């Protein structure tokens, strides 16, 4: 029978939740980590399959931000959170982007502490490069095309462990932090959704919906909330805490091309290729995407070319991603439980979307692509000249998606605007910490997971120092 009272409760077991949970449990503190989804560590769920979508994705992957255009997004909802479903690419935030955060949110990041945190995270999740002989052709082709155009392109390291024959195992939270957390004596409760929380007699009381349908209450002195950019603000809104919550949501909208080559570039189980074009970053990045036959089929159907699917081994999917200046919100609708997400691209973002599509097309043609099928109801393109017609397609016809969402409860120095202090706790209640992508000040312009983990680590270390002093 699980106890009901803890010193610390962490809500969510994604990277932002696991980092403080492990640090605090390893210091001997009494920690409960609560996860809404199930634990599939022992089960063999194929990557990028429909089973994985059903089991590990929030709402089985059917989530969208309403705006012009609608942007589909995906979030993890299982033990390990987003780390279980993403491609495992590791980035550090560029210093120019960090400077922008500091100016925008009146905040300062100690570069030495941040670098130490990144180094520790790199060790914890074994950030490494793919063995050279395992790099997929689809990825090398992007490098070739970029080289030919004189654009910067490089392999992005991933949190993977490779054995002697080059087989990789993603070092997601279920493989790394969660076992460490349990080993350190932390309690881990899965299939448990925190519906609301409130403060009673200086303790936080969480109302938790268990798998068996029962409601249970758990209490703690300190609360770390790590439900992700959508569900962290939604939990606050459900709990009646609304000031500055859920505003400023940001994301990395992406557009995809399915590229047809005159050679085989794809194999069953190829996974995610690892090169990214960084010539135009931070505004625009480009890279390879999951290219399994079913996903290619979906993309081809957008342009009514599903009949070409038998040629899938000559095809791969590539994306262009922008770093937008627009923003969105997370709200609750009357009579509905699911959070309602909106996101509106700015005029500049829309220009960048079209620019990013043209740049991606250029590099793909340079890489040897003979035809590009856009993720839109437009026709396919077979030359750079034809590609310019993309400008005539209304933005509402482009199918955009993202897996990077952040900044819905930003850290910042102005308590009238930012809900979270530069140390990661709420301005209105210093015993509640936000430890996930919601706390990021703005777009990190790269995959956010490394930065979330590094900042979560810094904040957890500050917390340990603080409660050490308090005790």
């Amino acid at each position, binding site marked *: 029978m699980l106890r009901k009272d803890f010193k610390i409760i962490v809500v969510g077991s994604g990277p932002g939740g696991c980092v403080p949970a492990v640090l605090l449990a390893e210091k001997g503190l009494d920690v409960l980590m609560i996860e809404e989804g199930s634990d599939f560590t022992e089960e063999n769920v194929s990557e990028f399959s429909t089973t994985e979508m059903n089991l590990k994705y929030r709402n089985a992957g059917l989530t969208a931000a309403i705006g012009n255009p609608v942007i589909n997004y995906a979030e993890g909802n299982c033990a390990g959170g987003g780390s279980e479903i993403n491609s495992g690419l590791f980035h550090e935030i560029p210093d120019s982007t960090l400077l922008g955060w500091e100016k925008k949110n009146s905040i300062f990041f100690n570069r030495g502490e941040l670098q130490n945190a990144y180094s520790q995270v790199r060790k914890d999740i074994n950030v490494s490069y793919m063995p050279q002989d395992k790099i997929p052709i689809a990825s090398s082709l992007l490098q070739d095309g970029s080289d030919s155009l004189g654009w910067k392109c490089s392999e992005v390291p991933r949190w993977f462990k490779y054995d002697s024959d080059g087989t990789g195992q993603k070092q997601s939270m279920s493989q790394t932090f969660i076992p460490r957390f349990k080993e350190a004596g932390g309690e881990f409760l899965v299939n448990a959704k925190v519906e609301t929380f409130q403060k009673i007699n200086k303790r936080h009381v969480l109302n938790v919906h268990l798998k068996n349908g029962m409601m249970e209450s758990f209490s703690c002195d300190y609360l770390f909330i790590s439900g992700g950019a959508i569900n962290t603000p939604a939990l606050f809104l459900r709990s009646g805490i609304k000031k500055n919550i859920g505003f400023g949501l940001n994301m990395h909208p992406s557009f995809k091309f399915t590229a047809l080559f005159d050679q085989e570039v794809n194999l069953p189980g190829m996974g995610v290729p690892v090169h990214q074009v960084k010539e135009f970053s931070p505004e625009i990045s480009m890279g390879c995407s999951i290219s399994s036959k*079913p996903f290619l089929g979906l993309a081809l159907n957008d342009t009514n070319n599903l009949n070409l699917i038998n040629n899938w081994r000559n095809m791969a999917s590539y994306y262009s991603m922008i770093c937008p200046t627009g923003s969105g919100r997370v709200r609750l609708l009357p009579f509905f439980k699911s959070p309602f997400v909106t996101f509106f691209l700015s005029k500049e973002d829309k220009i960048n979307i079209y620019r990013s599509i043209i740049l991606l097309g250029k590099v793909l043609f340079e890489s040897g692509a003979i035809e590009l099928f856009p993720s839109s109801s437009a026709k396919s393109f077979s030359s750079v000249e034809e590609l310019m017609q993309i400008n005539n397609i209304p933005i509402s016809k482009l199918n955009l998606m993202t897996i990077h969402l952040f900044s819905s409860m930003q850290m910042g120095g102005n308590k009238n605007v930012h809900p979270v202090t530069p140390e990661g706790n709420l301005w209105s209640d210093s015993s509640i910490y936000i430890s996930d992508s919601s706390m990021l000040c703005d777009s990190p312009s790269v995959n956010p997971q490394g930065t979330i983990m590094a900042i979560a680590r810094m904040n957890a270390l500050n917390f340990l120092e603080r409660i050490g002093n308090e005790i």
Partner: protein
Amino acid sequence: MNQKFQISLIESILSMHDMSSDIDKIQNFLESQIKKMPDFMKAGILFIGYSFNVLTIFVKFKFFTNLELSSKIHSILIFKSLPFFKIFFRFFESIIILKALELKC
């Protein structure tokens, strides 16, 4: 959304794309997707689904589920170009194609 309606849609969409597959497995996947989708989206999808089933009476003088396969496909092609219905059919097509191709792999 009842099973008969879902199966009718699956058969029609597979046939539109000259595909064949295990309809029960696709229907199970579709059912689980509908069950898990955000509640406000589910409300929209269900409303449009019921509307489509009923509105085919005005086009084909029968509920969608009671039509011949060729008439079902014709109805889908008519409604697919209309606002809201376009989103509805894109959702169904995506789910059905994704699962059907996965089953083939």
